[in-house]
């Protein structure tokens, strides 16, 4: 897995409008001056690759946590509106309020938490039912998406360049300055989640069984949901709601890690790989240049339809 991610990074660094020889890339990374390659590698491709990896890891981790906690593959934050909430807040902050940088990230996190709270609140009736939460989340997600579209349609033409980022997610124009808040969030919140992965696995046995195994249910759920929402929101504030990465990473990781082991680390790597390769495909392999979200969206949508058909047939949530 890790090797695949490294290979993906290498591929991204080497490929541009013209191919840079791998040796030149290494020399640039080592700090040497290489005419014609320095700017492309250090200022364009490296930040882009780093951002792809960090955002992908955040989406993958956050998504897998939600899916595990709610015992439903459909309960991914990008399906139930948490990404849309963070995205809507970021759009409002940038277009209407003219904010930038860390303030946007903070507002996106706050909005993500608020939407999570709203969905959980609306779905709560003597406990949390996965199906009700997912339906409410999809509804809220649709409302927020239309709000984003409205704000963007009123935005001045010069800021429409960024529009696609907030609709499907993109790592275009990544700078190292964007990378720091995300790296920090991933270290703090991702660390919190990884330390709790045994508890999360125990929670899959049901609340009662997990409590009997010594998991303080209420506190664990609160901490993990908050950390996952925080991760998703920060990543969304930086890269936009990269479609379906959170949704796809968990199930793929579960298949790789095996049913008995925690999928969190695998999910983070799968997420990184999805964004990295999705972006590569969008940039270099398609006839026109597409943002990464278009590519991951095309991958994720069929899987979503498959899951919905499956849960309809078997009569239980997938």
């Amino acid at each position: 897995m890790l090797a695949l991610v490294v290979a993906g990074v290498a591929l991204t660094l080497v490929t541009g409008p013209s191919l840079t020889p791998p040796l030149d890339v290494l020399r640039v990374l080592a700090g040497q001056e290489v005419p014609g390659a320095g700017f492309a590698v250090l200022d364009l491709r490296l930040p882009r690759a780093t951002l792809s990896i960090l955002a992908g890891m955040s989406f993958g981790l956050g998504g897998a946590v939600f899916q595990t906690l709610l015992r439903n593959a459909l309960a991914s934050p990008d399906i139930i509106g948490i990404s849309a909430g963070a995205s809507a807040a970021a759009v409002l902050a940038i277009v209407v309020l003219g904010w930038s940088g860390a303030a946007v990230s903070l507002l996106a996190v706050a909005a993500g938490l608020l939407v999570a709270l709203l969905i959980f609140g609306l779905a709560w009736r003597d406990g949390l039912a996965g199906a009700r939460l997912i339906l409410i989340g999809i509804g809220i997600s649709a409302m927020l998406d239309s709000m984003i579209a409205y704000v963007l349609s009123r935005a001045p033409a010069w800021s429409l360049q960024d529009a696609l980022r907030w609709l499907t997610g993109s790592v275009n124009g990544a700078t190292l300055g964007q990378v720091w808040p995300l790296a920090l969030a991933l270290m703090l919140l991702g660390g919190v989640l990884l330390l709790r992965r045994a508890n999360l696995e125990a929670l899959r046995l049901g609340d009662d069984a997990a409590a009997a195994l010594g998991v303080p249910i209420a506190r664990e759920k609160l901490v993990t949901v908050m950390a996952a929402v925080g991760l998703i929101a920060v990543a969304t504030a930086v890269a936009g709601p990269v479609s379906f990465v959170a949704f796809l990473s968990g199930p793929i990781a579960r298949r790789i890690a095996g049913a008995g082991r925690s999928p969190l680390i695998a999910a983070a790597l799968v997420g990184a790989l999805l964004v990295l390769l999705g972006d590569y495909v969008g940039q270099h392999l398609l006839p026109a240049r597409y943002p990464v979200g278009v590519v991951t969206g095309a991958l994720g949508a069929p899987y979503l339809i498959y899951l919905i058909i499956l849960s309809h047939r078997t009569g239980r949530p997938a």
Partner: protein
Amino acid sequence: MTRLAAEGLSAGYGQTPILRDLTLKVPTGAITAIVGANACGKSTLLRCMSRLLRPSAGRVVLDGRPVQGIPTRALARELGMLPQSPIAPDGITVADLVSHGRHPHQGPLSRWTAADDAAVATALEATRIVDLADRDVDQLSGGQRQRVWIAMALAQETDVLLLDEPTTFLDIAHQVEILDLLVDLNQSRGTTIVMVLHDLNLAARYADHLIAVRAGRVHAAGHPDTVLTEDTVRQVFGVACRILPDPTSGRPMMLPLGRHRTTADPSHRKDAP
């Protein structure tokens, strides 16, 4: 001697009170069966004792300490609980599921040790599911699956084990098998066992101590010989019955009496005209 006891316990869900000022003592090293009509509070009692439910009044005491004050993980090392319907994650193997029993013995950073392996192996042997270790839990029969869940609770290595209706939904052969397994456990390890059971006759035969619960209170408690009487059954379950000695164990055996077919009516004979 008593390690686990409930003192003046009241509890319920929302506004509906289910347990009303209930007090009981669980004899240490014995098998206790809790019986009672539907919705009398049997499961609620077990949930309070294992701290899955917080009582509105009163307390549960383990070794002189109220369980509410014991950290969750520490409690899980002393008291195991098998809830009524735990969920087996899709595609999980028997060995992986049983390994979850080691959860309270592990910290967030600690590694899996030889002691963990030994506990899992012992649990698989005690429940006789060693051969199934690599199978998917989904593919097992109901009786096998119940043995897997009990194995998980055994891997927890607690001195006290609570089980909420461990034999429900099992056919009679598997019910007897599970109860035999619990007796084995009790005899070989001295584990204190408390279980909710529906079948009065099996409860009377397998338990050393019987607790009959009615309307959120303990109606009678003690040796099955003294608890399982015609009066108790009528008051607790609202059904008339005859009590006969079980010809194999000598414990009391209950035959319910309904409105029909309660006399040796000659018209029920095959040779009747």
